[in-house]
């Protein structure tokens, strides 16, 4: 990583690059759509060519050549080693404990890295109805470890979640284990400001890395609870030119052959 960056990059790019570096070269990763998918696709094109990417639509060992827009794009089934049904995906592969890393986003996170992707406000009368759980609760329960990717500001890093969609370290102090969920839980939260990791005893998130140009004060201000900061803060390496080039080339395809197959209006009547 000695190659220094020539071009400017934005905080989201730093976040995705930092997240991609946390995937092991031979990781087996269950990928949520959006930034986690970007980060995993970047990792497979850089340090982790043998990364096994799993999308919840049932594609195992997926090797998309373009970034999918959804978790079920045709690009995924065409480039997968195997496609299994969704019940098989969730029961055998996920609940059965075969997947090493779960990669999630969320709308809110608390100090124990529990996540909300359900509602902002009251569940019955919310200010914002978010999409909901999807696979997240069981991904976080049954993957060996979880990585979480979201922007850090007082609206996302909250004192109390509006809804507990997905359990991280639950109430801390080993309480996660009492829930009988086998995975270790969130091992890193990667944001646009830095990286947080749960304290091994209390389970509370501690700021351990800052991205280039970011101060600990900025991270503390972006957090609604009194943020713990590690005694020695590491500094994330800037994105390399190669990482940025690959990342910027990762855009969902808008190409579809559907228009060619639809007849003109006059011919479509009957």
């Amino acid at each position, binding site marked *: 990583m000695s190659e220094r960056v020539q071009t400017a990059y934005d905080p989201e790019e730093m976040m995705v690059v930092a997240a991609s570096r946390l995937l092991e070269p031979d990781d087996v990763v269950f990928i949520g*759509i*959006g930034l986690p998918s970007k980060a995993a696709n970047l990792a497979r094109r850089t340090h982790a060519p043998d990364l096994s990417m799993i999308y919840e*639509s049932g594609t195992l060992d997926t090797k998309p050549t373009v970034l999918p*827009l*959804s*978790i*079920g*794009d*045709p690009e*995924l*089934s*065409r480039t997968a080693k195997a*496609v299994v*049904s*969704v*019940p098989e*995906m*969730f*029961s055998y592969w*996920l*609940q059965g404990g075969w997947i090493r890393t779960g990669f999630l986003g969320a709308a809110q996170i608390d100090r124990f890295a529990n996540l909300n992707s*359900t509602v902002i406000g009251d*569940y019955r009368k919310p*200010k*914002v*109805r978010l*999409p*909901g*759980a*999807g*696979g*997240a*609760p*069981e991904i976080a*329960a*049954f993957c060996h470890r979880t990585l979480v990717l979201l922007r850090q500001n007082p609206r996302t890093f909250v004192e109390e979640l509006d809804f*507990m*969609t*997905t*359990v991280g370290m639950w109430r801390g102090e080993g309480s*996660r284990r009492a*829930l*009988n*969920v086998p995975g270790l839980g969130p091992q890193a939260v990667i944001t646009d400001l830095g990286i947080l990791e749960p304290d091994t005893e209390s389970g509370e998130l501690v700021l351990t890395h800052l991205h280039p140009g970011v101060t600990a004060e900025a991270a503390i201000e972006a957090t609604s609870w009194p943020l713990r900061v590690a005694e020695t803060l590491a500094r994330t390496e800037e994105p390399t030119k190669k990482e940025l080039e690959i990342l910027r080339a990762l855009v*969902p395809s*808008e*190409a*579809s*052959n*559907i*228009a060619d*197959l*639809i*007849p*003109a*209006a006059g*011919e*479509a*009547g*009957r």
Partner: protein
Amino acid sequence: MTEFLELPEAVKKYVSPGCSVAAEGFTHLIPHAAGAEIIRQGIRHLTLIRMTPDIIFDQMIGMGCADKLVFSWGGNPGVGSLFRLRDAYEKGVPHEMEFEEHGHAAMANAFAAGAAGMPCAVFKGYRGTQYPEVNPKIKFIECPFTGEELTVIPAHRPDVAIIHAQRADRQGNIWMTGILGVQKEAVLAAAHSIVTVEEIVDSVDESSGGTVIPRWAVDVVCEARLGAFPSYTEGYYDRSNAFYQKWGEISKEYDRFVEWMENYVVASENFVHYLAKLKEDGYV
């Protein structure tokens, strides 16, 4: 015996006001032509069941077809919100609805349990989350062998399942390939099933891989060319990511949405005619 019907007749026969409809297809093979036909016939008071409501249920909810939604992820995949679902949930537009919310694992298990003739699904889910507080159908039991606490939810047993597939043969055997979601489970769990297909062929070729649902497990087969648009049919056409991105603008405001639906979906003679109008006006 599998019946071969035109889609409007099939919908008239099996989708009646008040019934529960599982329309499955996980991003791939979403039975949009059937959804549009239900809207065209103005069928109301439905219980809609789908893991990802997607545009198909967003349209049906916005047009007032649904009294209840059972779901596990209600976004526009890769884009953002489903605004008709959000308006129904947040503001009761066009009317108040009941929402039964799950996670994907629960929905998949509930369909599989229904297919297996079980009253409930047993799995390990929701531990520590708030879902059991808001969904009274999530319960916990003790494993009689190990004492482990397990999660149970009722099986899905919809009145009718609707899916889209690549092909059917002339006996009604269904052949499908690519991402298969929970479609087979939905068909087997339901009292009746309608399968729309891209084409009806002399024989389906199971030796080329894919999945066959035998004719005696299917009530009705309807030909519905391009019937999964804006989702896709592997081997036939791609997902229209562009339309998914445009759906946000079309559906954001309720009045504009209704006008659009009336112009494009309701006023069209059939699904291909609707697609032709979309093409003419630059939506695809």
